[in-house]
């Protein structure tokens, strides 16, 4: 399907026992999709696999289809160009002694930051940011949790990914900041036509913002994970 990003035939074995068996997620482009399930059901593991981080796993199988391109889950570098994961601990994503603007400009770095390329701070900021009243020249450590989460989302978007994975983006935020983050996310999805897969336990918060599918992950009796 041309207007969807599909994850197909995901298989993963842990200690020789099946963990994921034939997992399939089909996400309509330009929508916010959710992945829900109990703690320990494998949501974060699935996100790590999709991001191309197989550090703790071997024998991962599966394919991600972006319109005409089909990319195997073992092609880490190709996956990392198209899919980005914003971790639950979003502070890992930021250099908090630098300003919001500087953090965004760090996204110009290649895999090997050049000693010859001079830093440019003239980053083009999205229009939606004006609504959120963020002082972009303040060191990030002085911003609120919600504002820092917004920055981590913007940094992820700077890399022009086709799919953004968010692992519990509002877990450490109060309800007001959590709502602000989702409002920003929806605005940026509309502006840039992005596809997002969010892991979130707060159904009440998530429900008004979800424009795509709700994937539910459950543990079968045999220990394998099932997604519906």
């Amino acid at each position, binding site marked *: 399907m041309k207007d969807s990003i599909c994850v197909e035939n995901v298989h993963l074995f842990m200690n020789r026992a099946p963990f994921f068996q034939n997992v399939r997620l089909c996400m309509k482009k330009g929508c916010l999709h959710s992945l829900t399930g109990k703690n320990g059901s494998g949501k974060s593991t699935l996100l790590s696999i999709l991001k191309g981080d197989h550090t703790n796993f071997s024998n991962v199988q599966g394919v991600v289809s972006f319109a005409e391109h089909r990319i195997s889950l073992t092609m880490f570098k190709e996956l*990392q160009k198209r899919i980005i994961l914003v*971790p639950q601990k979003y*502070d*890992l*994503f*930021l*250099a*908090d*002694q*630098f300003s919001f603007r*500087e953090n965004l400009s*760090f*996204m*110009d*770095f*290649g*895999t*090997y*930051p*050049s*000693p*010859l*390329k*001079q*830093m440019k701070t003239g980053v083009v900021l999205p229009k939606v940011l004006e609504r959120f009243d963020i002082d972009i020249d303040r*060191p990030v450590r*002085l911003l609120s949790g919600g504002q820092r989460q917004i920055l981590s989302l913007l*940094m992820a978007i700077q*890399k022009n990914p086709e799919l953004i994975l968010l692992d519990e983006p509002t877990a450490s935020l109060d309800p007001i900041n959590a709502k602000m983050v989702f409002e920003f996310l929806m605005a940026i999805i509309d502006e840039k036509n992005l596809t997002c897969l969010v892991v979130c336990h707060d159904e009440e918060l998530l429900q008004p913002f979800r424009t795509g599918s709700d994937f539910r992950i459950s543990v079968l009796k045999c220990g394998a994970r099932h997604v519906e």
Partner: protein
Amino acid sequence: MIESLLHQILLYVPLILGAYFSLSLMKVPDLSLESAYLFGAVFSATFPCQQGVTPFLIALLGGAVVGLTSSMLNKIGNIPFLLAAILTNGLFHGISQILLGKAMFSLSATTQSEFFILCVVSIVVLLVGFFLLKSHLGYSLAIYGNNPHFFKQHAVSDRYVVIGGIVIANSLAGLSGYLFCLSNGFVDLTIGFGIILLCITALVLGRAIVRTNKQTILCPITGVCAYFVLQDFLVRTGFSLKYFNAFQALLVLGTLILLRKKQSQTLLADHLGV
């Protein structure tokens, strides 16, 4: 009087700039600066070709080899940096001893004025340092000190950043070691001992005066100037230099306690304190 003070400052400019990269920006306990300082001098002094800029480049190369060893032990061998630096120190002190073959080695006199050489080298080093700090790599060194996990999250090679930063820092220390020996006219195996305390004192002084969290070349320059002005002042007031190490330690301690008390938005206490 001012010329002799300036002469001393210029001798240490590359070393303090190197220490600024590794200790202040990257927040790495880079004790290998001591062996880089020694090995840069020894490697250059014993190198067969002593023509033109060759000895300076060889000194940089000597320091770089030391930096490469300690950073690779850390990033590829997964040895904690402090231990890697201590092992590197031991290794390169031994290699320096073998290269020298004796405790002291005389250097041939240069045809150029020594002060002129120091001025040119310092200007070149400061210009390179200035542009490096504004570059992607320069910012990466400061980001590493702020959040070492940043690079993994953004698919940037942290191995490259750490090895690159430490190699640059140690190269500068190697160059400084050679300048010091050039000025003395000989190399001996004890020249690197205790210079880490000099680096830390100068950087703490620089940071206390400049008061910024941004990476700037002003910090090491101000630090090294303040250090030698203070030393000169103490000597003039009759202070014996044999107590200077103890004085340096107390000075660093006092400055750090003062800074922590006056900690403001522009000055953060960090795990290395420099």
